[in-house]
């Protein structure tokens, strides 16, 4: 049948059979080559290519969540995020040469040492982070470089970096979040579990260059952004406090300092400034990591004369004294072979308790603590919160140092020295909280800096004013407040007096223990609040090692006065008492 076909009918000769057969053979040969290639790819290369495909399909990538914002009580942004990129690589597909090339090309863009990148690129694994926080411009440069030099295995992943738009404002309160977006110190550290959010997952296909391509929307678990944290801090108050602190520290050539502003009735911290401070944005440039520690909650110091208020409170509460209890202060007293002296070394005969505060007399204060007795005195101090953390929601709070009679290190002389604030270690937050308890009528409040945490519009945590315990009966507190008002208005220097406003307060000057003796420098402090009847704010000013003057009355009290003046205006606090000036004018004609 096929033979006959070679010559077709109609007079037209058909095509020779062999030509068609030859073409068929060619087709068969080509098919054979294809089959060979298929066998090679599908069977011989199966484990290699299939393995690669497996990797591509199985690997998951983490999606960084944006960190929650931090705002002040009025919604002013204190910490937010910006879009950045992470430079990644897949070392498993890079030859040594390729790794060296890539390191040399990318190092100048990301500003890292070539060696560092090279080491990472030559490492094991399929994913390595070469650099974080690349700006969009930097990442574009990387992309251009990758394209120009045909670099393989280099990827850019979108991420988030923290921004602190207000420079160093409230740096100690905020803390910072590091390059891996993990919070450290302050709110960033304490509230990290709320702020950090939940990373998402992307089951992605990885192309041979190590980039990730989402293959399906269903396989992306989007990251949950972190919750927003709203602070009790008022950034304006914070700014006032920082400005005043910086000015004072600079003027006095002091070593450091702290100012805390608080609402006495609630325990809300309105401002918490410490100097020297740092810029959270540039945390990596800090020379000494100790600058991150918030002195306001972690630094111990001897409170000195400011503590006499507390001593007086214990005496009044125990009923062993009244404001009018009088003693004969000879200017010194000998106890257990030691001599306690007044700071001015002067005697104050027939001195009332109010006058003890006005003169800031050590002898008088130790008289009170001794009169109260060690059991009641220390019980009361512990009630005021000394020797225990206040529970403020900031990282690194310390508990202070209160040596109790049960302690081996305690000696009877402590009862005397503790009375005027020596031989006891307190943190600024402890002291101001104790003073706030006096100011607000006897309630020890738990201080706090975060008012609420909001996730997706829902409040997930709210801090409300918390009463720790009642430490003074209201009547006793009122008595003490009256004494303090007198101290400010009629005391020796009247350093903190502001016409038209009722202020209660006390200065403090304490020596700094050094090598068994005392340093030539002091810590000058002032605690004050206003109004006396209805306290709106309480301020602690503490300046370490001022050089021009060593007295709290000359260093800290003026700073308080300046700050208070601005707070009156900002917090809309009208004068609550007839001013002396007004009275003068009224009587002048």
């Amino acid at each position, binding site marked *: 049948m096929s033979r006959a076909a070679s010559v077709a009918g109609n007079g037209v000769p058909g095509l020779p059979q062999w030509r068609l057969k030859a*073409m068929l053979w060619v087709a068969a040969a080509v098919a054979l080559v294809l089959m060979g290639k298929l066998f090679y790819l599908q069977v011989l290369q199966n484990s290699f290519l299939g393995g690669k495909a497996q990797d591509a399909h199985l690997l998951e990538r983490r999606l960084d969540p944006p960190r929650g914002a931090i705002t002040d009580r009025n919604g002013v942004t204190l910490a937010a995020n910006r879009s950045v990129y992470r430079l990644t690589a897949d070392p498993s597909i890079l030859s040594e040469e390729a790794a060296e090339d890539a390191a040399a090309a990318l190092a100048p863009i990301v500003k890292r040492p070539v060696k560092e990148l090279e080491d990472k690129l030559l490492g094991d694994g399929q994913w390595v982070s070469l650099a974080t926080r690349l700006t969009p411009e930097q990442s574009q440069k990387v992309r251009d470089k990758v394209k120009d030099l*045909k670099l393989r295995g280099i990827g850019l992943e979108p991420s988030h970096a923290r921004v602190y738009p207000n420079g160093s404002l409230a740096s100690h309160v905020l803390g910072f979040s590091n390059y891996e977006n993990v919070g450290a110190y302050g709110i960033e550290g304490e509230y990290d579990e709320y702020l950090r959010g939940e990373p998402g997952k992307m089951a992605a296909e990885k192309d041979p260059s190590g980039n990730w391509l989402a293959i399906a929307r269903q396989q992306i678990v989007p990251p949950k952004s972190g919750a927003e944290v709203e602070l009790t801090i008022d950034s304006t108050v914070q700014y006032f406090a920082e400005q005043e602190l910086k000015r004072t520290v600079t003027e006095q050539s002091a070593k450091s300092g702290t100012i805390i502003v608080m609402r006495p009735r609630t325990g809300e911290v309105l401002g918490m400034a410490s100097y020297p401070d740092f810029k959270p944005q540039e945390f990596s440039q800090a020379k000494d990591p100790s600058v991150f520690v918030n002195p306001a909650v972690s630094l111990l110091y001897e409170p000195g004369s400011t503590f006499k208020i507390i001593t007086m409170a214990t005496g009044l509460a125990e009923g062993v004294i009244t404001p009018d209890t009088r003693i004969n202060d000879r200017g010194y007293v000998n106890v257990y072979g030691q001599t306690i002296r007044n700071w001015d070394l002067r005697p104050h005969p027939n001195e009332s308790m109010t006058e003890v505060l006005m003169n800031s007399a050590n002898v008088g204060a130790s008289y009170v603590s001794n009169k109260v007795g060690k059991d009641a005195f220390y019980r009361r101090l512990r009630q005021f919160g000394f020797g225990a953390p206040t529970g403020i929601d900031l990282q690194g709070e310390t508990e202070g140092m209160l040596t109790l009679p049960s302690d081996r290190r305690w000696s009877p002389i402590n009862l005397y020295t503790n009375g005027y604030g020596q031989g006891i270690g307190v943190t600024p937050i402890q002291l101001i909280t104790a003073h706030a308890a006096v100011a607000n009528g006897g309630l020890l409040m738990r201080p706090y800096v975060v008012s609420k945490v909001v996730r997706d519009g829902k409040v997930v945590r709210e801090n409300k004013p918390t009463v720790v315990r009642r430490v003074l009966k209201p009547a006793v507190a009122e008595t003490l407040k009256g004494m303090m008002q007198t101290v400010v208005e009629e005391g020796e220097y009247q350093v903190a007096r502001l016409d038209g406003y009722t202020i209660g307060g006390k200065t403090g000057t304490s020596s700094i223990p050094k090598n068994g003796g005392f340093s030539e420098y002091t810590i000058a402090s002032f605690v004050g609040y206003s109004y006396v009847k209805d306290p709106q704010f309480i301020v602690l000013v503490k300046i370490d090692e001022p050089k021009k003057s060593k007295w709290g009355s000359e260093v800290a009290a003026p700073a308080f006065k300046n700050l208070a003046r601005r707070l009156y205006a900002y917090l809309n606090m009208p004068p609550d008492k007839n001013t002396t000036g007004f009275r003068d004018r009224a009587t002048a004609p």
Partner: protein
Amino acid sequence: MLRTGRLRLVELELLIIPSLLILAGLTLVVLVDRGNLLFYWEDVYTAGAFIAALLFVHLFLTLSGFRGDQLIFPIVALLTGIGLVLMQRLDVLGRRPELPGIAIRQTIWVFIGVAVLTATVALFRRLESARRYRYTLAAFGVLLMLGLVTQSPIQGARLWYNLGVASFQPGEIFKVILVLFFASYLDERRDLLASEYRVGPLKLPPLPYLAPMLTMWGISMLVIVFLRDLGSALLFFGIFLAMLYAVTGRALYVWTLGGMFLAGSYLAYQIFPHVQTRFDTWLYPFEDPEDRGFQITQSLFALGSGGLYGSGLGYGSPDALPAVHTDFVFSAIAEELGLIGSLAVLGLYLVLVYRGFFISLNARNGFHQLVGIGLTTILGLQSFIIIAGDVKLIPLTGITLPFVSYGGSSLLANFVIAGLLLGISAADSRGRVGRR
């Protein structure tokens, strides 16, 4: 060889295979996606309709007393069935915007294609007129192709006419026209072409008859340059070479013109950046794997992960392949059905080509023989170009896998080709489809 009676039993028996394949294939795809054994009658509607269409063609051929080839149609049905199963598989996947809906569209095209095949067989006698009006036909074809320059390029190539409801790829029809024209032209001049004269040691064909060859070469080069379609150029030129060789039997022509094509391609490589990228991508796919090399590396991954037995229908990840429904159907088959599946598909094309040449061999006149050779070359060469591209044997070009790839123009043209081959197998020397 095969019994040619009124009953086409061989064909009927062979049609059982594509019928079972589509039934099992479509059901499997739907069930795997659904994840349990629950199934609805709707799931088998398409399969049932397809089987009905096969029976319709078979009954038509039987009842019209058609005594032509009984293998061509079952093979075509099998390949089309594989295509339909695959489109359904990609459709349920639906992860890329171009995929959902392709199964139903492909099904519609297949039914139109089956009708076109039947019509081609029925109207086969009219083929003689194509022989007479060959220049008109050629001019029409060339105009159709030239018109493409007016179209805006899709993915860098101008291959489609946008007709609103559907797009039409004239290249698919053009290749059939090309075969008819060549067959007519070469059949008339074969003696002259076979003669020669000598210039020194070289034997050359008569110069006036050399012109068409050079024209053809020129057209191929133009296709590369202006339409950016390497695959089509290779296909057109390959058809021409195969037919020229069949007529003259001179390997010298093949070598010379093949060399010219290579030279032209090399020149194009040097001059045109897009040709250059195509070749570079082929040679070094891992140099730019995220962009240009992406397609071929993904294809290699798919082939490699398929292994000997494949991942199983519905268990692979063909969505990782770009243009999986057109350029990379073969890779998708190889991934899910393994080497066994890919060799089987390859084997089907080989049998198809064998049948094509066999039909040509037995054709009753030279024109039919040449048309048969040309059409068979189209099917064979096109399959080769795309499969070889998928396995990185040659540079990848955007061309369809006959009967399997998604695409209306391509399917219709392929059914026309199948119809013509059937017609040739049954025609007598005067071109009439014989009846007994």
